[in-house]
């Protein structure tokens, strides 16, 4: 569904990605593992068009994305839940969800309202806080809002960048349950995580990234068995 071929990315003199190949298959959860500054978020930003690759191609359902502006990529069916959530903190929960549906403007309001109801079904907490200013909510609630906001675009591919970061263990479990539930409804997901154990437990397939290079890839079972993954990530976790 999504293919990255030989992606090289540079910030000035700093090389962030050194020829990354990655495939996300329809209907699966693919996870991307790696330590700090390995280049995971750069991959996410490259897919969504916030970072332009120096060379290489990104293609989604057969179409090349890497020359398109972000808004065009988003309207093709990819949504991002960014690292650090980045909800619109000065706006209400409802306004954040409405912004998530921006790519579908022109659709009947009833359809949008229905989707908002669906989001409330997934995250009942948000319903209680419709009119609350989003910046005043807890980190876990903000994470739910960020995911709900992305789902409002009705994407076919969801990019999740470190959804567990800064959340309490109880919340982490809840968030991962919801990720799995969304996936079972047919959503393809690319998940970036530092917490390899949890990520591999829900993903079908994974990649391990170190300083801008893919060093291991395979099914979750293969990765869990691989030495370098165990040493580098599972030992720590």
């Amino acid at each position, binding site marked *: 569904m999504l293919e990255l071929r030989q992606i090289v990315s540079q910030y000035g003199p700093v090389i962030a990605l050194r020829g990354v190949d990655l495939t996300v298959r329809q209907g699966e959860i693919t996870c991307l593992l790696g330590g700090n500054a390995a280049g995971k978020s750069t991959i996410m930003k490259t897919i*969504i068009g*916030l970072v332009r690759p120096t060379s290489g191609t990104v293609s989604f359902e057969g179409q090349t994305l890497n020359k398109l*502006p*972000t*808004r065009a990529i*988003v*309207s093709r069916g990819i*949504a*991002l839940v*960014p690292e650090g959530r*980045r909800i*619109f*903190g*000065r*706006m209400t929960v409802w*306004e954040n969800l*409405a*912004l*998530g549906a*921006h*790519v579908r*403007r022109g659709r009947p309001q009833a359809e949008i309202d229905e989707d908002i109801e669906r989001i409330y079904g997934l995250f009942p907490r948000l319903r209680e806080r419709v009119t609350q*200013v989003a910046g005043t909510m807890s980190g876990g609630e903000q994470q739910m809002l960020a995911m709900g*906001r992305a789902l409002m*675009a009705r994407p076919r591919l969801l990019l999740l960048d470190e959804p567990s970061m800064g959340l309490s263990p109880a919340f982490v479990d809840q968030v991962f349950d919801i990720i799995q539930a969304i996936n079972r409804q047919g959503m393809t997901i690319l998940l970036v995580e530092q917490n390899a154990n949890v990520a591999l437990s829900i993903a079908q397939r994974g990649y391990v990234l170190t300083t801008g290079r893919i060093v291991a890839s395979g099914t979750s079972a293969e990765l869990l068995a691989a030495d370098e993954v165990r040493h580098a990530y599972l030992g720590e976790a």
Partner: protein
Amino acid sequence: MADILAILPQQLVFGLSLGAVYGLIALGYTMVYGVLSMINFAHGEVFMVGAYIGWAVLTVLIGHAFGGLNPLWVLPVLLIPAMLLCGGLGVVIERVAYRPLYARGASRLGPLISAVGASIVLQNAVMLSQGARMKVYMTNLVFPADWRFNVLGVSISVLSIVIIVISLLLMWGLVTLIQRTALGRSIRAVAEDREMASVMGIDVGRVVSMTFFLGSALGGAAGVLIGLYYTQIDFMMGYAAGLKAFTAAVLGGIGNIKGAMMGGLLLGVIESLASTFINPAFKDVVTFAVLILALIFKPEGLFGEPLADREKI
């Protein structure tokens, strides 16, 4: 002293109408700052162009004197073209002078100097095409000088009330648009987090253009109102007015829409009091002193951080 006290209420009304107009101009500074974090230096000149457009339309109307000039239809006929044309001018200024610079990711200095250039170009283009001499608004053909009424012994002109009301209406319209519409939501999203706004699928460039359009349209309206009020306009008027409106925006907390209006009203009153109690020649010195004091002691604006934060577009 007794004389001064006698004219004080009149001066206050005068200050409030002036301040309402400053507030309208300040909205343009504050909106652009909210979205782009830059001061649109040419905004004062957009206001000046608005005053000239209003003057041109009024002159045509007088030439054809359609059986009396009733303010009920004259005001919209003056305001709407000025607002549309100034809005368009604002969009052009942004496209030509600013966008190539911040699209390239130039340093902060570049857009600022380019903005100063845009402001000089507008001043001189108006001067060369319209002449350096001032133009006169024949205001008394629309609002006769004897249209005044008395409240508790204070004589107030209808025009000053009209100016306050129009300014407040325009501001109410803007706040409604920003708070209640999808466009307003997009503007607030870009102001808060440009990158995430584009991830939502928002066309950031278009939103920036719309912001310039709205701010410049209000500036154009302010130009017409000031023209009617002062009756004399010239190509340099945008400079002092821009400085004052910017002071108003700082007083209200730059980026804060309601604050800009409050800051404008406050500054108008301060200025009229300064003219009354101190030498009128130094009224601009007082404005400037207010700006310096505000920057030193309250750079976040008089209405404090929480409001500024919440109401920021």
